[in-house]
C-alpha cells in the first residue's frame, strides 16, 4: 500500500502537475480576459484546437516554431474577431457562438487534417519543430533538481509570468479598471465615457491571441503532434478554473494547478489499477461548492442588509 502511494506521490508529481496545468492555464487566461468584460467565452476549446492545428501545419511546412506560433495566434485572433462580431454587432448569444465555434473547429481541423496533411486521426512527423525548451546545464548533475526545474518548454514558465502580468493589468492599471467596469456595469461605463463596444471587441481579440498561444503550446510544447479533438475538454476545464477563481488570474491559476494535480494523480492511480474517477471529480465538485458557498454568503449578507434598512 505504501509502496503504491510512493509511486503516486513523489517529487516527479511537481513536474507532472505543472505540465498538465499549463494548457488549462492558457485556456483560463483566455476566458478571464473576456469574463472581466462580462463575456463568457466557451469557444476557447475551438480557438485552441484551431491554434493547435495551425501551429503543427505551419511548423511542419516552414520548419520554424516562431512562424508556427505567430500563425496560431493569427488564427486565434481571427476566430475571436468573428465571435466578437457575431456577439457584439449581430447580437448573437455568446454561448451559442462559442458552442458553434467549438463544433466548427472540430469539424474544420478534421477536414483540413485530411485535405492538407493527408491523414486522419493524428499527425506526427519528425519535421514538426517544437517550441524551444529551457535547458540549464548547471542543473544536470542532480536527478531531483533536473526533474523539478530543468527542460521546461518555453511556454510553461511564460504562462506563470502571464498570470502575474494579467493580474497587474486587470487590477493595477487604468485599462484594467475600465475593462472591469465595462463588465460590472456597462451602462455606468458608457455614461462615464468608456466605449463599451470597442472595449469588449478589443478584449475578445486579446483573448484570441492567448487562445492561439494555448493551441500552439498544446501541439508544439505539451506534445509534438496534432490529433483530432486533442484539446479534449481542456478549454472547458479552463472555463471551470476561471469560475473557480472568480475571474481573478492568480486564484484561477490555483484552480488550474488543482486540475493539473488531480489529473496527474488520476493517471497514476489508473496505471496502478485503482479507480481515478473520484480524484478527477475533485476540481469540479470543489468549484461548484465554492460557487454555491460564495453566492450563499452573498445572499445572506444581502438579506441582513435589507432587514437593517427596513
Amino acid at each position: 500500500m505504501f509502496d503504491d502511494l510512493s509511486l503516486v506521490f513523489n517529487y516527479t508529481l511537481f513536474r507532472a502537475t505543472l505540465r498538465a496545468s499549463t494548457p488549462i492555464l492558457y485556456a483560463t487566461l483566455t476566458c478571464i480576459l473576456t469574463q472581466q468584460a462580462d463575456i463568457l467565452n466557451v469557444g476557447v476549446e475551438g480557438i485552441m484546437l484551431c491554434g493547435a492545428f495551425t501551429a503543427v501545419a505551419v511548423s511542419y511546412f516552414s520548419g520554424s516554431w516562431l512562424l508556427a506560433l505567430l500563425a496560431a495566434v493569427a488564427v486565434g485572433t481571427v476566430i475571436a474577431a468573428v465571435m466578437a462580431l457575431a456577439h457584439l454587432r449581430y447580437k448573437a448569444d455568446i454561448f451559442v457562438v462559442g458552442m458553434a465555434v467549438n463544433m466548427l473547429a472540430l469539424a474544420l481541423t478534421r477536414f483540413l487534417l485530411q485535405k492538407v496533411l493527408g491523414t486522419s486521426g493524428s499527425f506526427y512527423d519528425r519535421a514538426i519543430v517544437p517550441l524551444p525548451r529551457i535547458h540549464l546545464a548547471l542543473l544536470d548533475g542532480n536527478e531531483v533538481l533536473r526533474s523539478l526545474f530543468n527542460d521546461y518548454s518555453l511556454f510553461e514558465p511564460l504562462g506563470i509570468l502571464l498570470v502575474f502580468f494579467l493580474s497587474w493589468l486587470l487590477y493595477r492599471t487604468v485599462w484594467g479598471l475600465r475593462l472591469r467596469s465595462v463588465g460590472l456595469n456597462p451602462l455606468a461605463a458608457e455614461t462615464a465615457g468608456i466605449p463599451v463596444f470597442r472595449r469588449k471587441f478589443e478584449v475578445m481579440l486579446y483573448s484570441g491571441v492567448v487562445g492561439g498561444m494555448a493551441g500552439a503550446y498544446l501541439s508544439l510544447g505539451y506534445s509534438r503532434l496534432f490529433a483530432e479533438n486533442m484539446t479534449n475538454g481542456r478549454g472547458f476545464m479552463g472555463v471551470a478554473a476561471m469560475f473557480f477563481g472568480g475571474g481573478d488570474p492568480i486564484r484561477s491559476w490555483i484552480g488550474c494547478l488543482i486540475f493539473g494535480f488531480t489529473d496527474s494523480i488520476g493517471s497514476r492511480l489508473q496505471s496502478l489499477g485503482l479507480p481515478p474517477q473520484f480524484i478527477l471529480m475533485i476540481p469540479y465538485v470543489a468549484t461548484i461548492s465554492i460557487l454555491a458557498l460564495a453566492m450563499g454568503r452573498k445572499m445572506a449578507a444581502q438579506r441582513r442588509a435589507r432587514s437593517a434598512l427596513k
Partner: protein
Amino acid sequence: MNKSSTLSTLVTVVVSLLFGAVVVALLGHSPAEAYRELFRGAFWGRFNFGGTLERFVPLLLTALAFAVSSKVAVFNVGVEGELYLGAIAAAWVGAALTGVAAPIHIGLCLMAAMAVGGAWAAIPGALKAYWRVNEVCVTILANYVAIYITSYLVGYPLSAGTGVPQTAALAATARLARILPPSRANSGLFIALAALLVTWWIVHRSTWGYKMRAVGENAGYAEHVGIRSRVTMVWGMVFSGALGGMAGAIEVMGLYGYFLDGFSPGIAFDGMLAALIARNDIRLVPLLAFFLAALKAGSLGMERFTGIPKSLVDAIIAMFILLAAMEGLFLFRRGARGKEA
C-alpha cells in the same frame, strides 16, 4: 418565433447550403451530386432513413430538455450529464431485473432514468432558485462529475468484466424493438414523440406549464400573483432533467443494449443547439432536431459515395448555427427580435 425570424432562419439554411456547395465545387466535386448523395444518405432506403431516425430521437429529447428548462429561465447546459446518468440507471434496471413483462420492464427503466436525471438536474435548479448561483457554470461542471460517476460505475461495480468498459447486457424484456432493420432505429421514436406531445401539453396547456412560463418571463410578477417561483423553477429543472435522462435510457435500451463508457459524443450539446435555433419554441424543436439528424445521417452516405469528408457537413452545420444565432444578420423587419431565451 414570428414570421420574420422564421424567414431569416430559412435564409440562413439556404446561405449555409450555398456555402457548402461552393466549398464542394472548390474541392473539385459536383455540388449537385454531393447534395443528392446527402439527401439519399438521409432518406433513401430503410437503413439510411433509420439512421436519420436513430439520431433524431436523442436530439429531440435533449433539445426538449433544454427548451423546457429555458421556460423557467434556467439555461440547462447539463443535459449531457443527465443523459449519461439516465443511461446508466436504465442499464442497471434493465440488467438487474429479470422475469418482468416487457412493457413493465421498459417502463421501469424509463422511470429510473427519468428519476435519476431529474434528481441530478434539481441540484443546479435549487442552487439557482435559492442562492442565485449561475446555472451555466454549475451545469457545465456537473456534466463532468456525472460522466465520471458513470465511468466509475461502469468500470467497477457494474462492469460486465470484459476488456471494454461496459455494463452487462440488458434483459430482452428491457430492449426496445428495432423498427427499421438493419438500421438501429427503434420504438424509442414513439416514446420520444409521445414525450414531445406531453411536454407541449404540459408547458402550453396545463396550470403547471402556465406557472413555469410565468416564472420564466417575470419571476417577480409570478411571485406577486401567488406562484411559488423558486419551487416552480426547481420542478422545471426536474422536468428538463427527466427528459435528458429519458434520452439516455432510449440510447441504451434501443441502440446499444448496454451502457458503454463515454458513449455520447456530446449528443446533448447538439440538442441544445437545435433548441437554441428554434428559440426554445417547442413546436419548432422537432423540425430542427430532424433537420440536424438528417444532415448528420446523410453526411455518412455522402462521404461513402462522393469521397467528400463527413467533417465538411459538420462544419456547415456549425456555420449554420453560427449564422442562425446572429439575429441581426438577415433581419428584414425592425423589431423582429423576440424575447431572450
